[in-house]
């Protein structure tokens, strides 16, 4: 596949791995955080950890939108399916996330939940089925937000009366800032997300880099991109000078995608948002602006009352930050398993606990 296979080249990967091992010799153990769930997956999928020396540690950050969606959101989404004529449309990976009593997957067989690859498909369905009320679950970071914004604009243009978005969208930089500040996590460098950066631009990391003196490298998702970026971070650490570097410049521009950012700004406004396992982070969420209120589910449909159980004993917040290990958690592998996950880290196959569970078994 073009522009994919070239960046998975075996020989170049081996060479960069060798360079990394050379450069890292004698370095105190460092934590680099890859924020995006897709990076976490790529690292596992290509077996990259085994190509790194022991003193270079890659920690997974909270960049998995499914993992950090609050349980209450899931409960409300499930409750929506019980309303007459409502069909909930969602991205596939949301379906297995457990709420307090059920999951969206369990509602699917009743025909009340549908999987879509694009928010736009949900709007088109709404257009063709005016007797149904379509609620699209807006989950995802800045990569996904413009696609939902474009869809809402389409709904407005077509004057749809039966299409709604339940926004659970979040933005990355505030979460990265929170982690950069945290001395316990002790991050010495960020592998910045590839496609979020394509939207928000290289400039978005300048403040974090300066304020906390943390090296930032925007890394593509292919193995050569990741290895190259790790090398770049190590070199920054050794030079003791933190800056923002753009390894993925074949896609990411300095100012990002201006049209996409304008679209987001037109349709959404910022609010405080609850991250499962972490808590509320200021200015980290997105809600529909007043002008698009007709498409905001919370303004148009009476969301049923839900009682969300607390994740008692769950220490995902600390695990997500790499401060504690799954073994430190009293629920791990007893009450909390991949089949019956409690917290964010076990919910997603990208989470640390899901990984550790499989290793143990």
């Amino acid at each position, binding site marked *: 596949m073009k522009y*994919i296979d070239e960046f998975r080249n075996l020989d170049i990967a*081996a060479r960069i791995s060798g360079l990394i091992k050379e450069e890292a010799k004698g370095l105190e153990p460092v934590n680099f955080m890859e924020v995006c769930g897709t990076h976490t997956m790529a690292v596992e*999928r290509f*077996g990259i950890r085994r190509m790194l020396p022991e003193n270079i540690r890659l920690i997974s950050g909270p960049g998995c939108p499914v993992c950090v969606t609050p349980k209450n959101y899931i409960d409300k989404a499930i409750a929506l399916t019980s309303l007459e004529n409502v069909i909930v449309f969602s991205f596939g990976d949301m379906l297995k996330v457990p709420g307090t009593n059920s999951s969206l997957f369990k509602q699917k067989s009743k025909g009340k939940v549908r*999987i879509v*690859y694009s928010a736009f*498909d949900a709007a088109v369905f709404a257009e063709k089925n005016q007797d149904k009320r379509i609620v699209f679950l807006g989950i995802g970071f800045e990569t996904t937000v413009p696609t939902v914004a474009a869809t809402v604009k389409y709904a407005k243009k077509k004057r749809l009366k039966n299409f709604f978005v339940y926004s659970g969208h979040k933005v990355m930089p505030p979460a990265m800032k929170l982690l950069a500040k945290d001395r316990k996590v002790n991050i010495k460098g960020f592998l910045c997300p590839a496609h979020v950066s394509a939207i928000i631009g290289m400039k978005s990391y300048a403040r974090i880099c300066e304020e906390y003196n943390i090296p930032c490298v925007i890394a593509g998702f292919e*193995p050569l991109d990741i290895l190259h970026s790790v090398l770049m971070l190590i070199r920054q650490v050794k030079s003791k000078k933190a800056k923002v570097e753009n390894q993925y410049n074949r896609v990411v521009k300095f100012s990002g995608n201006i049209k996409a950012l304008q679209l987001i700004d037109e349709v959404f406004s910022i609010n405080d948002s609850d991250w499962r396992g972490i808590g509320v982070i200021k200015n980290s969420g997105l809600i529909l602006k007043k002008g698009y209120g007709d498409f905001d589910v919370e303004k148009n449909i009476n969301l049923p009352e839900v009682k969300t159980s607390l994740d008692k004993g769950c220490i995902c917040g600390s695990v997500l930050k790499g401060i504690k290990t799954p073994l430190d958690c009293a629920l791990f592998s007893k009450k909390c398993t991949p089949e019956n996950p409690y917290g964010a880290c076990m919910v997603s196959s990208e989470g640390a606990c899901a990984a550790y569970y499989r290793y143990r*078994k």
Partner: protein
Amino acid sequence: MKTITLSHGSGGKLMHDLIKDLFLKNLGNSFLNKMGDAAFIKSGAKKLAYTTDSFVVKPLFFPGGDIGKLSVCGTVNDLAVSGAMPRYLSCGMIVEDGFSYADLERITISIRDTCRSSGVNIVSGDFKVVEKGAVDGIFINTSGIGEVFDSSFIDAVRVRPGDKIIISGTIGDHAASILLAREDLKFKTRIKSDCSPLNEFVASIICRDIKFMRDPTRGGLATTLNEISATSGYNIAIEESGVPIKKSVRALCEILGFDPLYMANEGKLIAIVSKSAAANVLSKMKRHALGKDARIIGEVRKEKDKKVYLKTQSGGLRILDMITGEQLPRIC
């Protein structure tokens, strides 16, 4: 309260644990305990293979096949990979009240055509109708009897370090076609299920050097290799760059985030072959239409931690666990 969940049926770890802790514990005997794709039974001088399978695939009709074709191929293939020529099948259907007659006819004709092309006969059948909602459309069970080839010595205990692992063709086709047929993801592709009877194919390659075979259905190649590793006791190592996959299936997996190594196949087999005979078996496979994409993908190792290792495309190392959850329910 303990309950059975979808994950128990995914062909992965939970299911294996359930089989061990409940079914083998209560029903186990020398036949069942082998957990083979088929049981071997002696009838006078003849050695027979006997197997059963149930089909709950959704949707019922998909590019490349339907539940009828699948219900014949599934059982025919379990017998074929056990080194037997399938002869006689039984067929039991459970149908939902209100099911379309035209669909039932279409499925029955599909069963007929697949039986003809694989040289088997349905010799016993059963038909039940249940109230609406008690079953989703139609569920089918088939069981089958076959005659073991004289040149077949399929047994996991024969597997040894150094044996080569051969896959008969591209992976993930069936699961990809089901996924596209089930959800409206609006991709235009020519992907279709690889659902095919493998008995003639097996007849053309069977020899003493083939120590073990299995068809990688639910849970895909990775899960089946884990099963073989567990039964034989040896580690297995394969190379990602050697695993054949259609461009379109690969692209779909990259776009949606599916791992083709865990995706079901319904017209492929894995063969564990002695090192000296591997090239020969491979070339015999390639001469058959169902084996033209066959490749040697790895080998059995001497270490015994019962793990399956993958050398990734970019040279990294990954352990392929057995599937734990349910990637795509009702895949077959």
